[in-house]
């Protein structure tokens, strides 16, 4: 049985490895955590994710910028790759699935990838369509995978209007799906005006919002089924 002290030490090591974008230490600490019999879940959420939360705070405070954020994400993935196969059950109360991509005309995917990482650690099933994705593809993939959520990203003013078209198409084909949009030129106002359900101000908020939306979807489905059962 792993002692509390050892556990604390390893969680701190995982957390710091992410904050200090140290991939090697993240791998070592992840392996050690498994070797001493720690729960993978514990190591992910109280180690890696806790580190990423601090990185998010530092980013907001402008202590870190995008290069640091990308390196921290690499360290997180380095640890996650080792821990993920050992995850027994993720207990977030909800497991959703999401189709995510950058809209056609836009080849920037850094923001999208960071949001995707948040979904990955939270145990969502992620269908990543990549970047410069033809608008119809979002609709097709949502219908094919029956995902709870579609996330659209655009980096530039000259590309974001494609998102409105996808939102309209998705709503026409499947009124139940939740849609979140994000990216530098996007705002809460635009999201509301175009009929998106969520606006990803940043990666942390994107995940929180997604969990809320998926929870409310599941609740709706459960209620509908309960009604049917009666």
């Amino acid at each position: 049985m792993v002692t509390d002290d050892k556990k604390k030490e390893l969680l701190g090591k995982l957390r710091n490895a992410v904050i200090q974008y140290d991939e090697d230490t993240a791998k070592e600490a992840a392996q050690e955590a498994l070797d001493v019999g720690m729960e993978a879940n514990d190591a992910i959420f109280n180690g890696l994710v806790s580190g990423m939360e601090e990185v998010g705070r530092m980013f907001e405070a402008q202590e870190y910028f995008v290069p640091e954020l990308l390196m921290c994400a690499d360290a997180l993935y380095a640890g996650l790759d080792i821990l993920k196969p050992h995850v027994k059950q993720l207990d977030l109360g909800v497991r959703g699935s999401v189709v995510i991509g950058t809209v056609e005309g836009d080849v920037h995917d850094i923001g999208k990838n960071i949001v995707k990482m948040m979904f990955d650690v939270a145990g969502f099933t992620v269908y990543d369509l990549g970047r410069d994705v033809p608008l119809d593809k979002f609709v097709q993939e949502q219908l094919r995978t029956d995902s709870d959520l579609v996330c659209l990203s655009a980096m530039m003013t000259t590309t974001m209007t494609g998102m409105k078209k996808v939102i309209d198409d998705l709503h026409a084909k499947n009124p139940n799906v939740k849609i979140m949009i994000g990216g530098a030129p996007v705002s809460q106002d635009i999201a509301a005006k175009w009929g998106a359900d969520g606006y990803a101000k940043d990666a942390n908020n994107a995940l929180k919002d997604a969990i809320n939306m998926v929870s409310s979807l599941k609740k709706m489905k459960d209620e509908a089924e309960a009604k049917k059962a009666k």
Partner: protein
Amino acid sequence: MTTLNARARVLKLFTGEEVDRPPCFSGMGNVTTEGLKALGYKFAASHLDASMMAAAAATSYKLLGLECGVVPFDLCIEAEALGCEINVYAHSEDLLYPTIKKKLIRNEAEMELVIPSNLTERGRVPLMSEAIRLIKKDIGSEAPIGSYVLGPFTLAGQIMELNDLLKLSFKKPDKVGRLLDQLSDAVIRVADQYEQAGVDYITVREMGATSDVLSPRVFKSLILPYLKKIFEKLSVPSVLHICGKTNDIVSFMAESGAKAISVDQKNDVAETRKKLGPKTLVFGNYDPYNVLVAGSTDLVRRTVKKCLDDGVSAVWPGCDIWPTVPPDNVKAMLDEVRAYRR
């Protein structure tokens, strides 16, 4: 003083002479669907033909009254000349701007780039020179003719994975510096062609180096030296444009050697004006989509007034103007600029 024509006003502004009022123009793309429709052109085709590009750009002045003519409309000219293939989305009826299909640098080892000696004969650089000559002949006696080039860092982000570039600017700044040095040479050569073709002003767009992405410290140490190198070589009036958060770097921007700096709606211009004093030319900073395209004429007027109250030297958009801009909104913007009394 007497009313100046649009060209004289902009040129005088750049040389620090007195002007009757701030101009209302742009140094970034501003083709409109209104203009394209009047000419019967498809957006995708307008990037590939000098006379179509020049004619479409001129309609922003002729039909909507924007006080300039600017070519091109997309951001891929330099990357294409360096050897990247571009996608103009010819199949699409939507308004899609050209993008880079394939990166030139796929890994760190390929960063030792050699700029082709015939760079200015490649891709659409000759087409651009022709387009500048044509629009100059068309409206150049009345309106200032502008063009733009990318800043070296933004260009680097087009020819290699931005992800890698950003991480390497942190891990191996020397290597990135060498690439930026090479790319500044490329940018200087392209800009030189535009100058020879008769362009009145050039905007250097270094939007990849915004403080949303890079720290002011890295901007100063890694980006600024190469911007200085470029502005030293430009002979026509020049503008440095960076979008996003810029309040912490406006002093560096002003040091770059550009005649004017351009910022977007995320910049607090009143603050910038305080920092830089009354003389520095600051262009900006209305939101070209949410205000000019999607806003009411009332919002347009209020925003223009705020820009002028804050102290912009010219009313100018924060980015490319999205083509579906309603002509009434451009008119409202121009009316407000003309009526404004400081």
